[in-house]
């Protein structure tokens, strides 16, 4: 309550900046907020509903259109070049959506190309968004697949607190080909993995944080 007296009065108001509604920004407007770490710094302060809307926008805009064609890495003094598989798809996406330093080292010259384009780029050479993005293993009967998981709420053990994505699917759900519920009568397992050894010479190590049986 502000009380006034007869005559002259003066009150100073200090206003707190809250920034824009991130869910309403378009792709171009949102990008600088992602690469500067602004979104990452406020990720857990956002209302859950807004965080989920924003997460879907981010994946739809920066993962779904992202197609890694081939990759190459140093080998016997030269380069070994291969067609990108799901693990490279995961690393390439994590190096943008997440924090590339958790999965690779700058200067390792681990390169990938956009499908249909000749330009090669080094993982970590692009600006990343620093969001809580993890490797996700999907293991079923005769089926091993790697996808990505973006954490949507703090409890990592709740399946619905994750947005799963890989290739052209920005919201992989149980039953999709990338996450079959069962194969040959055997249930599929989905696990969240944390990198323990960065990508080097085409290999990396990780450990399971949490796991679900579909």
């Amino acid at each position, binding site marked *: *309550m*502000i*009380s*006034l*007296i*007869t*005559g*002259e*009065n*003066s*009150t*100073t*108001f*200090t*206003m*707190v*900046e*809250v*920034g*824009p509604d991130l869910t309403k920004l378009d792709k171009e407007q949102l990008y600088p907020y992602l690469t500067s770490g602004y979104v990452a710094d406020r990720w857990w302060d956002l209302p859950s509903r807004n965080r989920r809307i924003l997460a879907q926008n981010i994946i739809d805009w920066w993962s779904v259109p992202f197609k890694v064609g081939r990759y190459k890495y140093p080998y016997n003094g030269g380069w070994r070049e291969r067609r990108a598989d799901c693990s490279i798809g995961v690393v390439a996406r994590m190096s943008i959506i997440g924090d590339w330093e958790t999965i690779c080292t700058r200067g390792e010259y681990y390169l990938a190309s956009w499908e249909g384009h000749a330009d090669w780029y080094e993982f970590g050479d692009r600006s990343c968004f620093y969001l809580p993005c993890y490797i996700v293993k999907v293991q079923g009967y005769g089926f091993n697949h790697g996808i990505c998981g973006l954490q949507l709420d703090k409890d990592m053990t709740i399946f619905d607190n994750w947005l799963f994505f890989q290739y052209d699917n920005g919201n992989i759900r149980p039953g999709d080909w990338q996450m079959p519920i069962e194969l040959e009568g055997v249930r599929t397992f989905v696990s969240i993995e944390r990198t323990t050894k960065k990508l080097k010479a085409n290999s990396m190590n990780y450990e399971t944080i949490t796991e679900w049986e579909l």
Partner: protein
Amino acid sequence: MIELKTGENETEFVMSREGEEANWTIVVIDKETGRSIDRARATLRGEVKYTNSEGLAYFQGIRKGTYPFVLIKEGYETIRDTVVYR
């Protein structure tokens, strides 16, 4: 404007003696930087004022009463308060 409805109506008027009015200067600054915020929208008694480049806005001739006050600036948390002049 005072709206009446069918039946009995009652309205309380608070009158100020001449020379008993209040003038109010508001200063609006950014909490983090301390810089003046211009074009913040302040509303008192339905009267709207915008802060100038020095973060100042003036309300004059306020009569005795209790009024809602709202301060709005895009990108900032809105301030709502009650202004009382008795």
